[in-house]
């Protein structure tokens, strides 16, 4: 499958997602050398967080809480998640559970 499979997942109550007038940022976690980079990512609620796999090996992105879960990401696949609820989201790769990362979600810009 040459084309990168992309998927987007929206989490949380729709009401908590900032509307179009509120700026959200695109954030990226690179997966390479069996590591999530950066290992800790600060985002605003509703930001698009895209995981891109650069390894020959497949990886997944699974929240410890079960809040989000990607499918298997092949080489060059990417997967996007938006998290609306502020908090700390530790996650790991279910194929290589020693691969760990954390997403820290702040309240959305312009919402406080």
């Amino acid at each position: 499958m040459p084309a990168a499979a992309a998927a987007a997942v929206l989490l949380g109550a729709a009401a908590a997602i900032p509307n179009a007038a509120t700026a959200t940022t695109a954030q990226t976690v690179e997966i390479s050398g069996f590591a999530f980079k950066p290992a800790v990512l600060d985002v605003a609620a509703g930001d698009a967080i895209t995981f891109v796999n650069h390894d020959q090996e497949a990886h997944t992105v699974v929240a410890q809480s079960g809040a989000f879960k990607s499918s298997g990401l092949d080489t060059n696949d990417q997967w996007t998640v938006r998290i609306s609820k502020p908090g700390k989201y530790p996650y790991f790769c279910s194929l290589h559970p020693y691969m760990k990362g954390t997403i820290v979600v702040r309240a959305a810009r312009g919402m406080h």
Partner: protein
Amino acid sequence: MQRKDFLEHVAWTGAGIAYALSAGGLMTGTALARGVTGSIDFVQISDSHIGFHQEANPDVSATLQSAVNAINALPDQPKFVIHTGDVTHLSKPEQFGTAKDILSQLRAPLIVIPGEHDFIGQDYNSFFQAFPTPKGGKQWFSWDQNGTHFVALINVFDFEKMGLLGNDQLTWLKRDLAAQSRSTPIVVFTHAPLYALFPSWGWTTEDGTKAIAMLQPFDNVTVLSGHIHQVVTHQEGNIRFATADATAYPQPAPGTADKPGPLTLPHDQLLRAIGYRNVVLEKGHAAAIDDRRFA
């Protein structure tokens, strides 16, 4: 019994005996000895990663097909072929379909246990639909064949801990082994290694020591695994451990790289690093393990 009748008899009983004839038409000593003691031979293949298409092996279907062709060409067909998991790369329906198309060409009976790549998304059904267990259950199982007790364990159910049997399986194993005599040869299959081969790369089973303690009293135990895409052998008491080559691509030897993962080699070297394994078990002897590469 005339020689011709004897040959027909062993062929008919299908006791897994190699009744090869020498050029002069006489049975070879090996064939006779195996007929007398009772033996079983089988083939192990592993880690086919159907769907993988990177430089470490751009055509994993072709190398799995090579394994099937080589096994089908064996003059004495193995009693069974076991695939010890990671049949697919991403647990996708079309990957299970391709794997099934190739593996179903085997002349010998096929047994498949799952690896973590076959359970992505905790979808266990896709695997078991493609490769039902002999008794139809969606879990571990055991069987007896030619005087040997075979146990197929699953240590990839819990995705947060790579290599875990869990209490249900350990309780089952204890009961299963209690019914065996100490002299019965035991062969155990797992995907991830049962012992702590290289834990920092996930090459271990977290509660494997509990299973190993249960196997320790037996005279002759062989534990055959996959997962690490290379042959590593290890001995603990009467237990012999041996991981197998992949049919897809090799991985670095433990600790020789920063991380595990596909190891890219020139094509001719790739074919010398992947293959299948022939195993012969004779009562009273340690398993004869013969790892055969494609080149």
